[in-house]
């Protein structure tokens, strides 16, 4: 344990200014938020309702942890579980399809020629535009999953394709000279080369995935989820709880991106890339 603590302390000593600045920026944000609330409150403005104080949002957040909200009657963790479940499913499905498709399209001319026009047509369509029809076709559970799938699929596909295309030709030639088979070339050169691109795609995709799920749940609104929760709280004018829901999304989204970062670091280390 000692060396870990020591390393941490060393880190803190080396970067304390940055740490202090990060803390300060958060503090300034909260202070600005509070000042805005206070200003509206003093003015007697209705906007004091819409911008509740940071403290009351904090209280609402803790209040939600151990009891169901009185409006919808569902525990916040149930909503979080619903959303996470959809995100995880959409994520796994998107990776399972986007990685092979991206590699194929990046390395081989014919798959590229086949896939490119379709990708170019569908990629610019925001996943949210699919919400109404997906909810009808796929229903209220798979529908949002499909939206998340689209949100994650294209960034991953594009990044993997880009990575596979930009493999240094000298590396490929060198491997070939050394007698690598096509499969070995793929496994030892092309795929490892695309991993940093893949990780970028995953991080971008997860961010979009969170946006998609919240929006889809607001429209579909059935089956719960954190987006449903936020909408329902707004309908009841329970704005503290609504903001608490938004904070939860922020934290969860940062956490999932953080986990992706951890995996990235782990993979890089295993592959000797850091």
């Amino acid at each position, binding site marked *: 344990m000692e060396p870990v603590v020591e390393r941490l302390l060393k880190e803190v000593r080396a970067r304390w200014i940055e740490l202090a600045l990060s803390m300060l920026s958060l503090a300034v944000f909260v202070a600005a938020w509070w000042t805005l609330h206070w200003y509206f409150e003093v003015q007697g403005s209705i906007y004091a309702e819409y911008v509740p104080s940071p403290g009351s949002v904090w209280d609402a957040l803790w209040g939600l942890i151990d009891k169901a909200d009185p409006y919808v009657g569902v*525990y916040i963790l149930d909503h979080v579980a619903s959303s996470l479940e959809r995100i995880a499913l959409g994520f*796994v499905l998107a990776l399972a399809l986007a990685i092979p498709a991206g590699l194929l399209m990046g390395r081989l001319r014919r798959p590229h020629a086949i896939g490119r026009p379709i990708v170019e047509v569908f990629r610019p369509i925001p996943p949210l535009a699919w919400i109404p029809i997906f909810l009808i076709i796929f229903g209220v559970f798979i529908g949002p999953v499909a939206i998340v799938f689209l949100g994650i699929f294209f960034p991953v596909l594009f990044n993997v394709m880009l990575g596979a295309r930009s493999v240094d030709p000298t590396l490929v030639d060198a491997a070939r000279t050394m007698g690598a088979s096509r499969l070995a070339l793929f496994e030892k050169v092309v795929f490892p080369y695309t991993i940093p691109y893949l990780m970028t795609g995953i991080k971008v995709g997860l961010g979009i995935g969170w946006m998609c799920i919240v929006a889809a749940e607001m429209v579909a609104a059935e089956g719960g989820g954190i987006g449903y929760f936020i909408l329902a709280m707004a309908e*009841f004018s329970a704005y503290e709880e609504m903001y608490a829901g938004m904070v939860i999304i922020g934290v969860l989204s940062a956490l999932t991106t953080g986990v992706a970062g951890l995996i990235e670091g782990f993979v890089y280390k295993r592959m000797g890339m850091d």
Partner: protein
Amino acid sequence: MERKVLVAVAIAVAVVVIIGAYAATVLFRESKGGDVYYLRTAPANMAASLESGSVDAYIAWEPFVSEAVVGGTGEVLMWSDEVMPNHPCCVVAVSNDFIEGADGVELTQRFLKAHIEATEWMLDALEDPDGSNYTLLITLASEFTARNASIVEEALKHLEFRYQVDSQFISALEEFVDLYVETNQTTEEEIQDRGYSSVSDLVERYVNESYLEAAAGIQPSATILNPDDPIRLGYLLGDLHQLAQFVAADDRVLGGSESLFERYGVNVEPAAGAPYANGGIVMDNFAAGNVDIGYLGAPPALIKHIKGGVDVVLVAQANIEGSGLVVEVGSDIQSLEDLVNRTVATPGETSIQHLLLRIALEREGLDLVLKT
């Protein structure tokens, strides 16, 4: 090798996330007894949802009840007046900013005069199904709701247009607020923070009958009081309960020369974005300053005033009763108890239909919970 690691890690993370989420769900969930599930659904889609089997029942306002009945796919398990006889439903609310503005009081009274006349015209028309006014009423109702004549004709039998503010109205509103307090949706402190000493004080002051009383004395006007500055009217999409404002705006009712609004000298226009999907949105548009006068259900008008401080006052009723719980024809659901572990579509938690269903189920010892 690297690939295997990556795939393994990705799958492991996904599995951990899913299992973790489920574990949390199970750990924190109460044990469930007599639960009836609900899904939030737009009333216009409810009959289709019932037919497709994605819900086992639905509760909606007219004409979406009679739509399934006339179409032969649904039958009514319970009318809303069986839960609470003569229950208030849609009300007319006015923004206090509007009342305090130029000619606000006068415009409110004139608007209400047209509302009263339109309501009485509808009641008279309904008295005589052979009269020409009845035919016109059905036409208007059909145009407003975009449903055919046989549907609206059936629907009109199950609601009662009423503008009067009576003691039954007041006591029903008190009952709603009491229920909100009882179920923790609001608290006595929250009501006191709004400057009301009690629930009855809240209802007494939130409902202001004086405009309606003064409206009785309003005479037809040769000129329009607000030619350039129309009253911005908020109302719900295809809600038959709110037909009065449609009747008041249509010049066929007075024989073609002018509408009731014009007769009493007011210029009325739909507010930006109207018709709205639910009463909560009407209240939000009041708060945003987009709506001057609005028709909406009593429960959202109450809860958004208490919790969101939306500064309006209730000046009249639009109708009483007129919602129903629909199941499929030949369904094995014959009572509320049969709904246990089944799914009911409701228009959303703030709606009167949701509230009445919750009350009805509670009397049977059942809970209404979101289907997750």
